[in-house]
């Protein structure tokens, strides 16, 4: 890749991090948790974005970042108060900055009016504000004091102004800061013809010499055509550490000696310079004799040898790895786990005994494999921060659109979860947050009337709980309006008017397909997507979602997800001569039915009475086509499962073998999609077991139900 292109990529990656830092810093300031370090970090973030943008010529970005930076600088220096209003403007400015970075990245456009409005708002915070666009600042940047152009003119005109007389008197401070008069004089020599004299009269005897003292001064006669500023520029940075005087030479008839200090002609100038410079060990360049060509030659020399930097290896604590390689590694470790299980099985079959050396070695192998598997999974584990940090902006926007005042509090951003899960967390969290703000939090007026602070709080938190990640979205709003929910559910035919529901069941009605409590479907919670879609997308990840609500106090959505999608907690069961795995998340309970609990329904159908409710019985062997006649349910084991599409069902299997973590092997990738089967896995004995798609099995049964059947007769 073109080096500039690759640096640009680095810049954008860095920008993402900087923007995240910026936002979290501003949020900390907003919630009064910030200190001067936070302000500094925020300032640095904008500053770095600007710095890089300048290098690539993203002018709109530079301009805006500059205004932003100036305002932050005022905050940093204490002239601008760190209050809520100011920070709010900055948060919006951070959004604009993010958009501008995005625009620079993909060439999209940003509404210039919006950028301008915010730039104006920022400028208004600091008075007096020059208001001038930054371009002036960056138009002449590279040059600054260093950007002179060497000027060389042959001047024969006797009438031309007389030569410059420059005196250079370095102080010890100049040497202490790494300045080298020889180099300064060399630069002067590059400007034009010079005549350089050394005054070493102040140089003491060697035994009285302070090695860090400064005893030398120079007088330089410079070609008259050289501009004064060019000469002064050479000494710009050394400044008062090396005082200079610069005058025009007196008329030519005046003797030179009258003005210039008596040149110490007897001294070996080069030797003296090297003496003065001995401590710094630098090369004694002879200013008066050194033509401009010499440094050029030195440059050429330098470009000859490009060596590798020596101590670079220790610098980086992280490396970037192609995701495909990690995936491949995970696949291989999966195979290793299976293989290890197969060997274990073989050892058991060979009846070597548990204390045999093979069995003991195998135990160690098993432990190692498990550790390797955990470590590999940890490579893919990432903190949920990357998802969480996108949310403050969403909250601001939704709050703005609904005219509500909402503060987002995030907790447990460091909670780690598999990358594939992270990628799919964003949508459900977005929906839950929108829902919390749109339906949960009241308007400021309503809140004040209810005796609450005008600003609502939405809490987004993540934590690990028993091998799963739990994400909660809690608001302190009005809670679920149960009578209204019930009324809508009845109107929409979700429940029958005489249904007797607990509060919990009413709350969970909002997950029913096509449900929306807002009187008008707002385009915020909406987009035509209801909580049912959220629930389904979470279930597709092997997760669950539930809600708890207290009227007047707020609602809490809790979703729990597996930490990884590569392995699955499954219940291993036997059906006929096949071994199947059912995802544990779908199973509510398992039981052995009493014959009296089973009621036949029609010629083939049957239901199971579980605590007063009737649940359809599905024989898995029949459903998957392994046998024609269902086994008597009382002879098998019932898995009571729950799915969104068809509610609950009782799956009949022959036997339960146990619970196990299994490595998921996609069937679609290797074979094709099979209805009722989600994926496959390889068991310890090397046999392939299918993983049951509970939702699909129940859905298939619901379809059958609509086929013409004789009227149900209870037995």
């Amino acid at each position, binding site marked *: 890749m073109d080096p500039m292109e690759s640096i640009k990529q*680095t810049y954008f990656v860095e920008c993402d991090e900087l923007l995240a830092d910026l936002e979290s810093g501003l949020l900390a300031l907003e919630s009064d948790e910030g200190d001067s370090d936070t302000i500094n970090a925020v300032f640095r973030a904008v500053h770095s974005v600007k710095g890089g943008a300048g290098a690539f010529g993203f002018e709109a970005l530079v301009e805006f970042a500059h205004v932003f930076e100036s305002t932050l600088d005022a905050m940093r220096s204490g002239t601008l108060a760190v209050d809520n209003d100011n920070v709010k403007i900055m948060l919006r400015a951070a959004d604009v900055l993010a958009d501008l970075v995005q625009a620079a990245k993909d060439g999209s456009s940003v509404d210039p009016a919006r950028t301008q409005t915010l730039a104006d708002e920022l400028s208004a915070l600091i008075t007096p504000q020059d208001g001038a666009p930054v371009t002036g600042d960056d138009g002449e940047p590279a040059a600054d004091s260093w950007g002179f152009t060497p000027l060389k003119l042959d001047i024969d005109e006797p009438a031309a102004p007389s030569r410059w007389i420059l005196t250079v008197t370095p102080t010890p401070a100049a040497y202490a800061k790494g300045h080298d008069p020889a180099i300064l004089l060399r630069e002067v020599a590059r400007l034009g013809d010079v005549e350089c004299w050394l005054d070493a009269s102040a140089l003491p005897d060697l035994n009285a010499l302070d090695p860090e003292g400064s005893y030398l001064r120079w007088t330089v006669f410079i070609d008259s055509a050289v501009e004064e500023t060019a000469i002064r520029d050479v000494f710009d940075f050394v400044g008062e550490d090396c005082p200079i005087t610069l005058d025009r030479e007196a008329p030519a008839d005046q003797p030179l000696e009258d003005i210039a200090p008596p040149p110490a002609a007897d001294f070996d100038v080069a030797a003296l310079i090297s003496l003065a410079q001995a401590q710094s060990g630098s090369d004694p360049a002879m200013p008066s004799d050194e033509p401009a060509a010499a440094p050029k030659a030195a440059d050429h020399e*330098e470009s000859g040898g490009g060596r590798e930097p020596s101590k670079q290896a220790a610098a980086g604590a992280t490396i970037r790895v192609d995701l495909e390689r990690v995936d491949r590694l995970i696949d291989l470790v999966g195979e290793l786990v299976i293989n290890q299980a197969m060997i274990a099985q073989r050892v058991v079959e060979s009846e070597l005994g548990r204390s045999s050396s093979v069995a003991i070695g195998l135990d160690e192998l098993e432990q190692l494999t498990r550790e390797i598997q955990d470590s590999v999974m940890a490579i893919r584990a990432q903190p949920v921060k990357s998802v969480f940090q996108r949310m403050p902006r969403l909250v601001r926007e939704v709050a703005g659109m609904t005219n509500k005042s909402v503060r987002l509090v995030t907790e447990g951003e460091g909670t780690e979860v598999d990358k594939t899960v992270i990628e799919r967390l964003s949508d459900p969290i977005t929906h839950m947050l929108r829902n919390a703000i749109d339906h949960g939090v009241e308007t400021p007026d309503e809140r004040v009337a209810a005796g609450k602070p005008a600003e609502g709080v939405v809490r987004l938190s993540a934590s690990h709980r028993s091998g799963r990640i739990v994400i909660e979205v809690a608001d302190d709003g009005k809670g679920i309006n149960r009578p209204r929910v019930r009324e809508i559910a009845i109107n929409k035919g979700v429940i029958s008017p005489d249904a007797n529901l607990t509060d919990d069941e009413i709350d969970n009605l909002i997950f029913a397909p096509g449900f929306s409590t807002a009187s008008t479907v707002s385009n915020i919670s909406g987009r035509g997507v209801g909580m049912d879609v959220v629930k389904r997308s979470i279930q597709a990840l092997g997760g669950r979602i539930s809600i708890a609500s207290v009227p007047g106090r707020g609602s809490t959505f809790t979703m729990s997800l597996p930490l990884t999608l590569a392995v699955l907690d499954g219940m291993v069961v036997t059906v006929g001569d096949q071994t199947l795995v059912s995802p544990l998340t779908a199973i509510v309970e398992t039981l052995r039915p009493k014959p009296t609990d089973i009621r036949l329904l029609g010629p083939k159908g049957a239901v199971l009475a579980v605590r007063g409710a009737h649940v359809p019985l599905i024989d898995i062997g029949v459903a998957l086509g392994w046998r024609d006649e269902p086994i008597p349910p009382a002879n098998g084991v019932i898995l009571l499962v729950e799915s969104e599409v068809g509610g609950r069902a009782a799956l009949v299997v022959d036997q339960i073998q146990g619970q196990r973590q299994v490595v998921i092997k996609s069937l679609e990738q290797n074979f094709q999609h099979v209805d009722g089967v989600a994926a496959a896995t390889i068991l310890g004995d090397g046999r392939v077991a299918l993983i049951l798609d509970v939702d699909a099995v129940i859905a298939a049964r619901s379809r059958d139900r609509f086929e013409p059947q004789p009227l149900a007769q209870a037995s």
Partner: protein
Amino acid sequence: MSKTILTVDDSRMMREMLLTVLRTAGFNVVQAEDGVHGLEVLSQSEPDVIITDINMPRMDGYGFIEGVRNDSRHRATPILVLSTESDPEKKNRARQAGATGWIVKPFKAESLVEAIRRVSA
């Protein structure tokens, strides 16, 4: 023998850029991520020129320059400040701390190399 340059900058992009520019110009490049790291790197290397940013976490450029000047091995090593800012007050502060020169970001490759040439013998 080619010169060794130490660059101290917290921005990864800026480090990469400096590395590209300086390597192309034929310098050896040693890099550090902030002032504290810069001083650590300095304890094991002898750069001919140091280029440092000002706004950095942990230890900023001023602190770093002072640190370098307090180390007798590096008190005469030229230090160039590379910063987006150009106001005289900050320049003066850098000078007080012991900086040798100042380059404004964004920089052109030639002007950076030129500046290095100007401060190093």
